[in-house]
């Protein structure tokens, strides 16, 4: 299913195209613009995957350098940003592999858990619950919560929901099928929601909600399309 971004981008030339052409023609300052435009996003993605600041710094540098060196291989039919993200994801996975002394790391690992694939906490949240915490407390909660997700869910959520890639772009970037991305995204969203409920639910909520209603319980026990 197409997203708003991909529909909007179909018939107009993305501003990155001109910058890429200038870089290919030898204008390094155009690459400076591209780096400035995307460095924060690439750093965030690398942090999401490696969970380590030093690794994210290295990945960010290596990804931009590799993209620069391989720019001739970049085909104009893809977006520069998604191409760059793919390089950053691969660099991040390589970095993880190094850290784990050569053990293979893929985005498919740790996905057997069924935890969180069925909603169990139905307590409503306080209005604007994030306002009950200061910035640094909130960032801590959000980091801790997303770090608890299996790796293959976390990266899909980060690309799709945090960085705003379309489902198709996320699939292409990670080398997954569209149904696999959709399945992982749903489970990632539900697991995060469930975990955040601990912090965000109304403090005065009645505690009488034991068990799930028959209709919802087990609804996603067999995730589809993976």
């Amino acid at each position, binding site marked *: *299913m197409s*997203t*708003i971004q991909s529909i909007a981008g179909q018939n107009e030339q993305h501003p990155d195209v001109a910058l890429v052409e200038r870089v290919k023609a030898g204008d*390094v300052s155009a*690459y*400076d613009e591209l*780096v*400035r435009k995307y*460095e*924060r996003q690439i*750093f*965030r993605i690398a*942090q*999401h995957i490696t969970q380590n600041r030093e690794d*994210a*710094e290295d990945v*960010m*540098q290596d990804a*931009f*350098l590799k993209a*620069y*060196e391989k720019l001739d291989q970049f085909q104009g039919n893809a977006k520069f940003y998604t191409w760059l993200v793919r390089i950053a994801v691969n660099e991040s996975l390589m970095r993880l592999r190094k850290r784990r002394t050569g053990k293979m790391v893929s985005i498919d690992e740790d996905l057997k858990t069924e935890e969180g694939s069925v*909603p169990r906490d*139905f*307590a*409503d*949240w306080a209005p604007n*619950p*994030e306002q009950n915490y200061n*910035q640094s407390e*909130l*960032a801590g909660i*959000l*980091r801790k919560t*997303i770090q608890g997700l299996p790796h293959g869910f976390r990266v899909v*959520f980060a690309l799709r*929901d*945090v960085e*705003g890639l379309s489902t198709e772009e996320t699939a292409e970037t990670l080398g997954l099928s569209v149904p696999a991305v*959709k399945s992982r*995204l*749903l489970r990632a*969203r*539900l697991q*995060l*929601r469930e975990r*955040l*409920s601990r912090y*965000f639910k109304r403090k005065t909520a009645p505690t009488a909600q034991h068990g*799930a*209603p028959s*209709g*919802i319980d087990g*609804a*996603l026990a067999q995730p*589809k399309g993976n």
Partner: protein
Amino acid sequence: MTCTEFLQLLDDLIDDAVSTTLRSEVEQHLQKCGHCEVVFNTTRKTIEIYRCHEIYELPADLRERLHTAIMDRCRRSC
């Protein structure tokens, strides 16, 4: 619409990718089912919170240092 059917549509609902007819069926279901309504609202809120709050800040000085290092390496590789 059942809760199971609602959950299968959850992502498309959040991404605003369902037909008007289907959306009105969902709205009817949500009016009757408080649990699904909570799941819908809090999942949307989950995404919004993650989208609006920077959890991996790149401080300005570090950003400048990395930016300079990247561009130096690119110029050297020319």
